[in-house]
């Protein structure tokens, strides 16, 4: 392994601009003569719009125009879409209501976009927004996931009676029912996966531009997938044909899924740029981010595990209600279905599973993928019920898991996924060793002598990522394939530009992708430039989410590099008057076997471009592209163990140790992979202990609408993490990569809540387990004990 090749902790190339304040985020972009947009948003959770009077606003200082849903409709601009079809059990398609970019007829959540003011300055746009006179007929609102399907609940969309979008199922109901009727023991658990607000540190932003001369549109946007944004804006929303629309996602300050989707604001900005004849810029306030970014999670679940008298699992059944919010966001339908139900086997050999999911509308912000997208929800259900079952059966939780582990691969689960490779014993053993599991009893006693309650909790997660084989997801309802693209463009002077369809918004692709190319082509890493994020420069790509850029994005680059080497070999052979079969390529040099004749990579590329002496049957130049379609999902898995200490007087929980042993297959840059795990764990701890999105049940107002009320994990909420790795190579891609971006967020909440319920001696506890929640639980269990 070289200092800059695969497996090395190379320091990041992109850091230079970020540490010197020279990053170029969307709000840093200013176009000449730009105007500023500010959105008028609904203050009501549910209301009919009876009229909108924009006349005063239009007359205000500096205002160029004020636009509403009627203006969009008059220009034949379509609504926002959901790109994944899900069918209910009876085969009927999901019942999706219309989702216009500016509300038409009704508003359905607080923050729903109603109109946009475009003015010379942002201050003028904000001032004029207060003059937009919207007349509402306020309706009752429903925000409670568990209650929105009741007869008589306020109806959001006429297309979806009982606010039910679909009722979907996976698995075998009859076989599972049979397993339960034969069970020696059934463990039952009711779980809520609490609603979260993604809160990437960079708020969403957009700058739309229209050139009347060329009739070309340009949109700068905080997107994780600029080509997908372009496709949706062109083909579905109708802003412009694809070839007349350029989308640029420059430096993006975090995404976590929330910047995948095609939202109202960037749609309106790029459309409005033509309407007003000026570039139109919008940046979200953090308050707007709270209201209008897609939220995450929000599941209500009842789960049951059937066991035999030896503690082996016979069957598993799950019923979930998944809140998708007021409108279906771009990938929302896939998250509680094919990214959730298919992971319910966990790391365990479960003969039969049956999972039902009802997706529902409520008067809340649309819900869609957020780091882990369905897999944190699945892991929470599996690992909480496993821990609970172990406690009910008085079996050590590690031993109970081992008894049920999948031991042989490949393993076909009852829920579509076929796990290709893994070793769950290895990660569990390593994690137990790292945290000194055997020493826990002594540590618990020591905590007790200090008046503290100590608990330990496991999370043996597995997830399916590296999304995904195109035909497979197509058959499951996806509207697109999930391959990735790369073009490796060798310049005459031998340096290389790699145009990747992936996008980096913190993942370090400019470094990791360069490590791969540097090693493969044998050229210094400084000579490799990774280009991403601009649809004018880069061929169509699917973008970054679902932990796919290593497994899928890099595999495309790998393939393109192989094509480059194949062509370069031909050029070198011809130049050195040797047979192609006699050429050896090693460390960036093409040599003729058994001689001292050789050509450096750069010499070969120059030869190819100068083209005075190249084989007759090939074209000049050295540039190759590849589209890589994965043959399977990848299956990162591992074991996280955490220890918590609770102060019973205050309910405050301290995370005193966190150990994670993950199997990500091949690792390109260990430093970057560890950083991904750190960040994921932090978000998982955030979900379990600290974060919770709350809507008022009477009014539908977002009560946690800023950092004053929505608590974010801070440095002093978290320990330093202790990480280990095991490795089973992923057999389904040329690099053996499984992916790592979401694993921490997937594993963490279950580990934390298992540890906390252990510490408190309670069966179940709500997330976020704030000090109030913990203290209340202690009072209740003390009162119970006193009464007994």
């Amino acid at each position, binding site marked *: 392994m070289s200092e800059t090749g695969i497996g090395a902790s190379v320091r*990041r190339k992109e850091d230079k601009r970020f540490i010197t*304040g020279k990053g*170029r985020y969307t709000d840093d972009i200013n176009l000449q003569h730009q105007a500023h947009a500010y959105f008028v948003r609904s203050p009501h959770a549910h209301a009919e719009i009876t009229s909108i009077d924009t006349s005063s606003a239009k007359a205000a200082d500096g205002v160029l125009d004020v636009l509403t849903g009627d203006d969009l409709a008059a220009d034949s601009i379509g609504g926002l879409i959901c790109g994944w079809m899900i069918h209910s059990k009876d085969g009927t398609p999901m019942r999706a209501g219309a989702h216009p970019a500016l509300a038409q007829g009704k508003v359905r959540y607080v923050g729903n976009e109603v109109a946009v003011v475009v003015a010379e300055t942002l201050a003028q746009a904000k001032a004029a927004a207060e003059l937009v006179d919207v007349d509402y007929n306020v309706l009752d609102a429903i925000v409670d996931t568990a209650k929105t399907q009741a007869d008589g609940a306020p109806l959001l969309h006429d297309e979806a009676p009982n606010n039910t979008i679909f009722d979907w199922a996976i698995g075998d109901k009859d076989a599972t029912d049979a397993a339960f009727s034969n069970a020696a023991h059934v463990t039952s658990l009711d779980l809520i996966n609490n609603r979260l607000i993604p809160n*990437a540190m960079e708020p969403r932003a957009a700058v739309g531009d229209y050139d009347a001369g060329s009739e070309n549109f340009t949109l700068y946007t905080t997107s994780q997938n600029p080509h997908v944004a372009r496709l949706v804006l062109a083909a579905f929303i109708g802003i412009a044909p694809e070839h007349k629309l350029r989308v640029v996602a420059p430096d993006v300050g975090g995404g976590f899924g929330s910047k995948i989707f095609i939202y109202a604001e960037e749609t309106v900005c790029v459309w409005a740029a033509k309407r007003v004849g000026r570039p139109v810029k919008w940046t979200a306030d*953090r308050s707007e981010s709270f209201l209008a970014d897609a939220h995450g999670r929000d599941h209500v679940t009842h789960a049951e595990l059937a066991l035999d008298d030896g503690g082996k699992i016979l069957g598993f059944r799950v019923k979930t209600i998944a809140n998708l919010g007021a409108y279906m966001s771009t990938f929302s339908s896939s998250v509680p279905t094919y990214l959730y139900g298919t992971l319910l086997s966990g790391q365990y050999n479960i003969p039969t599973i049956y999972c039902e999911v009802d997706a529902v509308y409520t008067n809340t912000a649309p819900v869609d993928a957020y780091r882990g997208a369905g897999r944190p929800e699945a892991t929470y259900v599996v690992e909480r019920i496993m821990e609970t079952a172990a406690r009910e059966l008085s079996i050590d939780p590690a031993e109970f898991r081992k008894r049920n582990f999948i031991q042989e691969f490949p393993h076909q689960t009852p829920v579509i996924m076929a796990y290709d490779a893994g070793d769950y014993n290895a990660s569990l053993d390593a994690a137990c060793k790292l945290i000194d599991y055997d020493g826990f009893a002594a540590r618990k006693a020591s905590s007790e002598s200090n008046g503290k309650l100590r608990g330990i909790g496991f999370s043996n997660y597995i997830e399916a990522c590296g999304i995904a084989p195109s035909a497979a997801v197509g058959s499951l309802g996806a509207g697109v394939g999930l391959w990735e693209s790369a073009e490796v463009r060798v310049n005459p002077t031998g340096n290389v530009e790699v145009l990747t369809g992936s996008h980096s918004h*913190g993942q370090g692709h400019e470094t990791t992708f360069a490590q791969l190319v540097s090693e493969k082509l044998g050229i210094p890493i400084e000579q490799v430039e990774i280009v991403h994020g601009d649809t004018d420069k880069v061929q169509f790509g699917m973008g970054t989410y679902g932990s796919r850029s290593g497994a899928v994005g890099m595999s495309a680059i790998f393939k393109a590099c192989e094509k480059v080497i194949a062509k370069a070999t031909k050029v070198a052979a011809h130049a050195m008057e040797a047979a192609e079969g006699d050429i050896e390529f090693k460390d960036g040099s093409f040599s003729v076997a058994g001689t001292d004749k050789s050509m450096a990579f750069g010499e070969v590329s120059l030869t190819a471009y100068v083209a005075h002496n190249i084989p007759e049957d090939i074209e000049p130049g050295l540039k190759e592209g590849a589209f890589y379609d994965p043959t399977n999902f990848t299956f990162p898995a591992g074991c996280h163990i955490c220890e918590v200490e609770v102060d019973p007087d205050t309910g405050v929980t301290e995370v005193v140790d966190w150990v994670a042993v993950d199997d990500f297959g091949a690792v390109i840059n260990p430093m*970057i992979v*560890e*950083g991904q795990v750190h960040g994921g764990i932090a978000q998982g701890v955030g979900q379990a202990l600290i974060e919770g999105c709350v809507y008022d049940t009477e009014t539908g107002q977002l009560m946690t609408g800023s950092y004053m009320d929505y608590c974010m994990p801070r*440095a002093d909420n978290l320990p330093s993490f202790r990480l280990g790795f095991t490795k089973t190579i992923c057999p389904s891609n040329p690099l053996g990569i499984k992916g790592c971006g979401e694993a921490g967020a997937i594993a963490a909440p279950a580990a934390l809540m298992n540890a906390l319920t252990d510490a408190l001696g309670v069966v179940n506890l709500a997330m976020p387990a704030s000090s109030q929640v913990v203290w209340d639980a202690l009072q209740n269990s003390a009162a119970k004990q006193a009464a007994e």
Partner: protein
Amino acid sequence: MPTVSMNVNGKAVSGEVEARTLLVEFLRNHLGLTGTHVGCDTSQCGACVIHLNGTAVKSCTTLAVQADGSQVTTIEGVATNGDLHPMQEAFRDNHGLQCGFCTPGMIMSGIDMVNRHGGTLDEATIRAELEGNLCRCTGYHNIVKSIAAAAKAMS
């Protein structure tokens, strides 16, 4: 409209601003120094931290007029003669950033806490001192490592 004059990163600057203009707006929009970021509207996230007369201050909660006559240092001004500040080096060396959006504020806060604590910065102190800086990407693990490393290098 008032005129403000100040020294920013060693350069005398001046501009006409509305009285309500925030210092961060003056830096980003009037001076084009976009390294200082706006991440929230309640003064909690710390992406806007700069140094005002040598002390860390949130520029989203400071009016430009309040900085009249002051020395302002932003992220663009901490390197000297093209050499990175030890805090900047430490963030790069220890992978203390991912998306980079919170990073200018983290670096400015980091420099300030080392200025105040010197070599006695342990992990618990660093974590407590980062109360005013949010990061969504790193889980803080490597930010703490970076600041500890810089503290050593700076002493």
